[in-house]
């Protein structure tokens, strides 16, 4: 039997151990989806017709407008800024080119809290406007309310554009130089170079960055709910919480998942024939120097997203925290929460990187062996599905499988006379698992794309020199993969730190993170007390963002799903 299996393996050279591990991982990812599907199937038809008639039409419309709006905002800001800092030289370009990533450290719910205060009729901005216009009461003059679809689009766009900026800038920095220089030397004007060469060239990068930003938008609960926008995700939440109808919520969530998968498939299909590989050695594009007014205009344009997406909310939070600290000092609970946040994010990041490497490596190995490639590719896609699920939905879907796991462990422990209690559910393990499943797409996609840059022929060359696959991974890929690994790790770290809904549901007793602490304050309507937690989230998040800006100048965000 064993001998037979061995010969079979030798014959087809299937990388079985790796593939099985990867498949196991993918199965864990798909588990919450299956649980959700089972829950959805129990739903009453009456509810489905209610949701279909009174909830879905408006929620779908709102979601569509939101996605469209955010897509345009992040596309324009991200691509425009990436182009300006790549193609031109102007005052402040060097530091602006990394400062543009800073809004990544600001969670959507934090930017919403900050701007509601900043732009409220009683806040500093409108007070100043009233002073300038000579009104003395907000009853006489007010700007439009930020709690609107347009407000939500603007705020989400301001903190999500870095996804597009990072990918597009990386594309311009590594691949564009020769083509763009040819265009310039053939006499194309700056507008023509941008619209006819740079833009088509950047299209896959824009698509990748946008799909990340749009998935964040689709799954956002913090900002949308806070600003009163009834999106599909908010409806999932309402159906579950207010009507205690998990089945109905699961139905909406699954329809959303189908939608996301369709969109991703469509996006991949639309560029199946395009090849963007370049044989030219990659080198940065030499920027053209702008002079006078144009140069300062470029500085102003590129500074704007940094000012609005980062500096303004950050300064506001810092000011509010300063006021609170003066009155109450730093609560010890906030320091505990900071430590918890940091620790759990580090652990989750490590596990997510390892899991991503497993998925991507088994695909690479299958390509190298020339067999099982399709299976491995599907495994990778399935493993990346978690990113398309709202955190709350993933967390609910995980509850049941984790309870099974704990029951199994308890049975084993009981057999040897131990009381294991709740192993996963009562430990940070549940959180780590949830974060891993949620953000696996980031590392798996990034590492897979990293492998993609090295032709498989190089593996074969190394193999023919007598290297084992393990040695190929270590000696050929590892040095080349490090930027992708680092970039993925940093993104996962930031995302984990900001994550709220799954953290709220799955954390152990006496365990607060900065996000849950902030939420607890917001829950009783005291967001100004949460300013300190919000500030700390941004500060802790800055660290990886600055590192991210230094590694390969942000060329690290890769295709999800």
């Amino acid at each position: 039997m064993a001998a037979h299996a061995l010969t079979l393996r030798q014959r087809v050279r299937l990388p079985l151990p790796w593939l099985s591990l990867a498949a196991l991982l993918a199965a864990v990812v798909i588990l919450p989806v299956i649980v959700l599907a089972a829950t959805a199937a129990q739903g009453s038809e009456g509810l489905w017709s209610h949701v279909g008639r009174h909830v879905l039409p408006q929620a779908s419309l709102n979601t569509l407008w939101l996605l469209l709006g955010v897509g345009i905002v992040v596309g324009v800001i991200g691509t425009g800024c990436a182009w300006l800092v790549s193609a031109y030289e102007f005052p402040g370009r060097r530091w602006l080119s990394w400062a543009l990533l800073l809004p990544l450290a600001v969670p959507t719910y934090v930017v919403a809290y900050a701007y509601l205060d900043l732009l409220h009729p009683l806040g500093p901005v409108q007070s100043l406007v009233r002073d300038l216009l000579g009104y003395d009461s907000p009853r006489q003059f007010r700007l439009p309310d930020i709690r609107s679809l347009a407000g939500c689009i603007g705020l989400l766009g301001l903190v999500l554009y870095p996804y597009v900026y990072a990918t597009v800038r990386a594309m311009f920095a590594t691949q564009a130089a020769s083509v763009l220089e040819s265009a310039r030397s053939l006499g194309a004007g700056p507008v023509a170079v941008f619209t006819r060469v740079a833009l088509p060239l950047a299209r896959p990068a824009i698509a990748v960055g946008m799909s990340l930003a749009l998935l964040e938008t689709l799954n956002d609960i913090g900002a949308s709910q806070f600003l009163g926008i009834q999106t599909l995700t908010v409806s999932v939440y309402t159906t579950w919480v207010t009507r205690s109808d998990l089945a109905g919520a699961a139905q909406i969530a699954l329809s959303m998942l189908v939608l996301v998968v369709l969109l991703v498939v469509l996006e991949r299909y639309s560029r199946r024939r395009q090849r963007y590989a370049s044989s030219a050695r990659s080198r940065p594009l030499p920027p053209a120097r702008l002079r006078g007014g144009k140069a300062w205009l470029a500085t102003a344009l590129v500074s704007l997203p940094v000012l609005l997406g980062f500096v303004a909310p950050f300064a506001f939070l810092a000011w509010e925290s300063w006021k609170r600290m003066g009155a109450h000092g730093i609560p010890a609970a906030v320091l505990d929460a900071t430590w918890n946040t940091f620790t759990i994010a580090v652990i989750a990041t490590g596990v997510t990187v390892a899991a991503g490497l497993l998925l991507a490596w088994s695909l690479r190995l299958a390509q190298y062996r020339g067999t099982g490639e399709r299976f491995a590719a599907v495994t990778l896609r399935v493993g990346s599905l978690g990113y398309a699920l709202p955190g709350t939905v993933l967390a609910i879907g995980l509850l049941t499988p984790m309870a099974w796991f704990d029951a199994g462990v308890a049975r084993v422990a009981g057999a040897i006379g131990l009381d294991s209690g709740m192993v996963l559910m009562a430990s940070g393990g549940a959180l780590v698992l949830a974060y891993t499943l949620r953000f696996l797409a980031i590392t798996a996609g990034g590492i897979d794309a990293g492998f993609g840059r090295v032709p498989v022929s190089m593996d074969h060359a190394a193999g023919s020199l007598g290297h084992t696959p393990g040695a190929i991974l270590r000696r050929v890929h590892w040095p080349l993969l490090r930027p992708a690994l680092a970039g993925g790790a940093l993104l996962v770290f930031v995302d984990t730190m900001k994550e709220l809904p799954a953290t709220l549901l799955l954390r152990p007793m006496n365990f607060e993170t900065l996000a849950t602490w902030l939420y607890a304050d917001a829950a009783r309507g005291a967001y100004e007390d949460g300013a300190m937690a919000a500030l700390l989230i941004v500060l802790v998040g800055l660290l990886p963002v600055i590192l991210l800006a230094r590694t390969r100048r942000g060329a690290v965000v890769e295709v999800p799903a």
Partner: protein
Amino acid sequence: MRVSALIKWPFLASLALAAVPALAADEVNLYTTREPGLIQPLLDSFSRDTGIKVNTVFVADGLLERVRAEGGRSPADVLMTVDSGNLLDLVGNGLTQGIESATLESVVPAHLRGADGSWFTLSLRDRVLYAHKDLELDSFNYEDLADPKWKGKVCIRSGQHPYNISLIAAMIAHDGVEATENWLRGVKANLARKAAGGDRDVARDILAGICDLGLANAYYVGRMKNEPAGSEQRRWGDAIKVIRPHFAYGSEGGTHVNISGAAVARHAPNRGNAVRLLEYLVGDQAQSLYAKANYEYPVKAGVELDPVVASFGALKVDPLPMTEIARFRKQASELVDRVGFDN
């Protein structure tokens, strides 16, 4: 190897983090949807007086799903929520157990607890009218909020928020579905801004001139008006006055209240301590903290109120049983969707 790391880590961590509190003797494990800031003083004083340590997890939503999934091994002793609907859901799903306690039965009026001891009210939270302080208005019925004369003058949080759902469910019980639907449409037409934000935003937006009146819970006013003079919140609080509305068609009239309450979990490993905690929470000291620190209305009669809350006058509670409100909760939520209240 990597998958094993994925499984091994939680194992180790659980030994360090979880197993200890779950097994230790003089402890009680509390799962709560209440904001930790509000109950922490109560729990600290319980621990000081009894020597029993309270481990808490603040679960905003999904308390029910979590306890249900944890099943027989759940470490939860006490389940605490801020909405009668959520509490009765826990009872309805068999996640609580009935307890007998002379203390609890004598303090908590019969219509504010489960007959079998499966749940108990700890404090009352009346849903009142915040009105601009200069508005000439002395009495108000909930039904009046739909009056076209308030067009563009009303602020309220999301219709799907449990506080509003509970009120709407009570209105269905009093006035019927059709009248309630018309009422909701009327209120929607009167809104000055999106139905969003929190209860205190009503006061804040009244100060900002966005609206003149709105519904919100009373205890927020206690908190705002007790802030130091000149502070932001104090200015919000000082911009409004509070009127306790009644239901126009309710048989006896009365103000709608929601409750904060608690139950002993079905599989509570520290059942004795759980009962002690509940009894403590309806005692004089804790009830006084509910009234003075949280500005809620104590469930125990005769406990002294905070002066700000006392200034609203006596609270006449709508006598509709909590179970009746819970019965119409789902219908209320569907009505909110149907009239597009939050859109």
